[in-house]
């Protein structure tokens, strides 16, 4: 029989059971036995390495650093639940949670625009004769301005959001004014 591989001899040295035929060869072959025993000696030498003791103040240093981090996290105003800071479940996004939430803001923009559009549509519906195409065009232009300005500013900051809300409010009020002005005209036969 040919000699088993060095891998097999290392397995034997690690205490794994070899197939019976291979094991029998190792025991009867001085060369293979020698190689296996050399592996065993290396393993023993490695096991005999002294264990390095951690410096006595290491645990305290870790705990102090961690306590500092927790305090910093709990110290954040808005009073976040302590459990989150302690457990640190997963890395939070880098922005502050109190800051602008783009999705929510977009909802406001769309909502306000839809409301204004509905009002203007109602005005057009109730006063189809008086509200000519120029009026529709003018209203559309007035509507487009805050929407565009708002969208641009949203990207930049929360201030943009408030500007948008203000702009939308102005449009809302003026469109109501428009509707009131148009109504008497439309009722005239």
């Amino acid at each position, binding site marked *: 029989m040919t000699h088993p591989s*060095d*891998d097999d001899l*290392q*397995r034997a040295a690690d205490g794994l059971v070899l197939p019976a035929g291979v094991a029998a060869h190792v025991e009867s072959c001085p060369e293979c036995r020698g190689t296996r025993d*050399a*592996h065993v*000696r*290396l*393993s*023993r*030498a*490695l*096991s*005999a*390495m*002294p*264990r*390095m*003791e*951690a*410096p006595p103040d*290491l*645990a305290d*240093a*870790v*705990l102090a*650093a*961690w*306590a500092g*981090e927790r305090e910093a996290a709990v110290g954040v105003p808005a009073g976040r639940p*302590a*459990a989150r800071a*302690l*457990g*640190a*479940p*997963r*890395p939070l996004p880098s922005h502050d949670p109190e800051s602008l939430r783009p999705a929510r803001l977009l909802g406001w923009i769309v909502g306000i625009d839809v409301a204004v559009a509905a009002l203007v549509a109602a005005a057009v519906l109730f006063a189809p004769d008086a509200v000519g195409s120029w009026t529709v065009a003018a209203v559309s232009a007035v509507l487009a301005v805050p929407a565009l300005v708002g969208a641009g500013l949203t990207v930049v900051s929360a201030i943009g959001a408030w500007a948008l809300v203000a702009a939308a409010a102005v449009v809302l009020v003026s469109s109501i004014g428009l509707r009131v002005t148009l109504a008497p005209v439309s009722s005239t036969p």
Partner: protein
Amino acid sequence: MAVTDQELVEHIVRGDPEAARLLVERWSGPLYNFAYRMTGSAEDARDLVQDSLLKALRHLGDYDPRWALSTWLYRIARNTHIDRRRRLRPATELDEERFAGDEAGEAGGPSGFTSPLRAALEREESELIQKALARLRDNYREIIVLYHFEALSYREIADLLDIPLGTVMNRLFRARNMLREALAELEYTP
């Protein structure tokens, strides 16, 4: 009965600082030995363990209890070591000189009933092995450290390194042969 690692983790996540102390005290020793054998420097080992345990405490919520905590902790230490090594510097001959100095001063020392001569021989042997280890690439060194020094099984190492069992054995066997060659270059045969 001692508190299990899993129980400690649950207590820490709920905000119990005493559990954090127990966990850190329990694992700083094994991680330090691992870190020392990987870096060959007491100073680097200390920094490595401190970083690793802090990372572990911060991300304890990410720990998956299906694995042993030891596996998770060694993995953090191992990844932290790789990151630091990439950031700091490649292995140099300077490291080898430091190994000898550190170990002579800090080795726990063999048990009391060995003779001074035997103690000196053992220390010399462990210094040579540490020197030879330092000559291996990280992935070969770590597998020897995990198997022989930290006494992890093939299976645990496979989980830790996220590699198949067969790869663990192949790499370990190659690593031992490389170590043997490195020891031969230092004119030492165990």
